[in-house]
């Protein structure tokens, strides 16, 4: 009897540990235990020219503090813009209606997130409101393209300048 008691205790401890581990895996290592879906939230919509690789579930932050998450991404068929729906935590219900939304990158290779910068309006964003001022994601390829174009221009103008100064220098040395 005593032996089977100890056996039950051992088995019970093992089962408890096992299920605790499963619970920990499903809630603590994933973001599912911490979604804002269960918390009260309101939705705000913003249209971007280009969202880069922004994903559903990406954080929405204000002054570096996470205030919500991206709930849905779709394409506006008439304007050809990306429509991003954000779930904002109801605790943060005093975001000015003229705030602007920009897409930033976490770290060098990290994922994209949306940063909100407060405007100066006295009215606040409500459920289903639109954010009018948006700034697209910096797409690295475009950026490099621009940089190369600028670099090409500036280096050619540098060359002409240095020619001129070289010529001027030559003149001064002649003098």
């Amino acid at each position: 009897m005593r032996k089977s008691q100890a056996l039950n205790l051992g088995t019970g401890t093992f089962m408890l540990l096992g299920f605790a581990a499963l619970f920990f895996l499903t809630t603590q290592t994933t973001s599912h235990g911490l979604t804002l879906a269960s918390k009260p939230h309101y939705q705000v919509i913003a249209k971007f020219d280009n969202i880069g690789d922004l994903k559903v579930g990406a954080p929405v932050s204000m002054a570096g503090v996470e205030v919500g998450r991206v709930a849905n991404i779709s394409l506006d068929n008439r304007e050809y813009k990306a429509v991003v729906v954000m779930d904002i935590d109801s605790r943060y219900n005093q975001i000015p209606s003229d705030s602007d939304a920009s897409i930033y990158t976490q770290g060098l290779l990290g994922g994209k997130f949306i940063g909100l910068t407060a405007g100066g309006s006295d009215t606040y964003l409500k459920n289903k409101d639109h954010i009018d001022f948006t700034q697209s994601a910096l797409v690295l390829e475009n950026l490099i393209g621009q940089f190369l174009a600028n670099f090409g221009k500036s280096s050619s103008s540098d060359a002409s300048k240095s020619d001129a100064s070289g010529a001027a220098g030559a003149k001064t040395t002649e003098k």
Partner: protein
Amino acid sequence: MTLLHDVRESFLGSLTRLGAVTRFLLRLLRQLPGGLKRWELIVAQIFNSGALSLVIIMLCGLFVGMVLGLQGYQLLERFGSEDALGTAAAIGLVKELGPVLTALLFAGRAGTALASELGLMRATDQISAMEMMAVDPLQRVVLPRFLGGVIAMPLLAAIFSIVGIYGAQLIGVQVMGVDSGSFWSQMRSSVDLKDVNEGIVKSFVFGVTCSLIAVYEGYHARPTAEGVGSATTRTVVTSAVATLFLDYLLTAAFL
């Protein structure tokens, strides 16, 4: 010519064995309704296969996690993204290393115990005695051991993964100096519930496979000392090969 013959024989042999194992599984499943009523027996087997494997699982999980912490840090540091260490360790453990290494350790720790126990029962005519007393040895002896393994494996794999993640955290955060906050938050934002599910499904499948192979080999062992020994060996070898093969199939299926 003889080589071709041998290859053909061994291929047919393994095919026959696969068929025999599958039929054995079906016979076991037919005993399921009656076997579930004897839950005391199943609890005893969960203790034998699960609780007794706990220490070795946790110890190995800790070391695997610590190695992941070291290796992952060395690798990620080259790309300047040490912060992703938590993600790398967690995904590696939850999807792959947890289920597979637990299955391999389980085959070595619990599978051999099951096979040699059943083999000795066969060798000492205990199984025949049960049949004489009109007790179905499949229901009384084999099914509880099989079910005990099937229940224990996913739990062991989950414990392995958790201990491993803490091992990686121990090395990555405490020794190598990765930021603790980014270790956990990057892990939370990148590990999906799908990844965890994949690990659970894998460990369940491995649990069925390894337990089935162990009880099959033990139950069908030749009733000699040598027969029990070779049944034990075959259990480990077959379990390991089957686990790694199924792991590939399951990974491909989940992609």
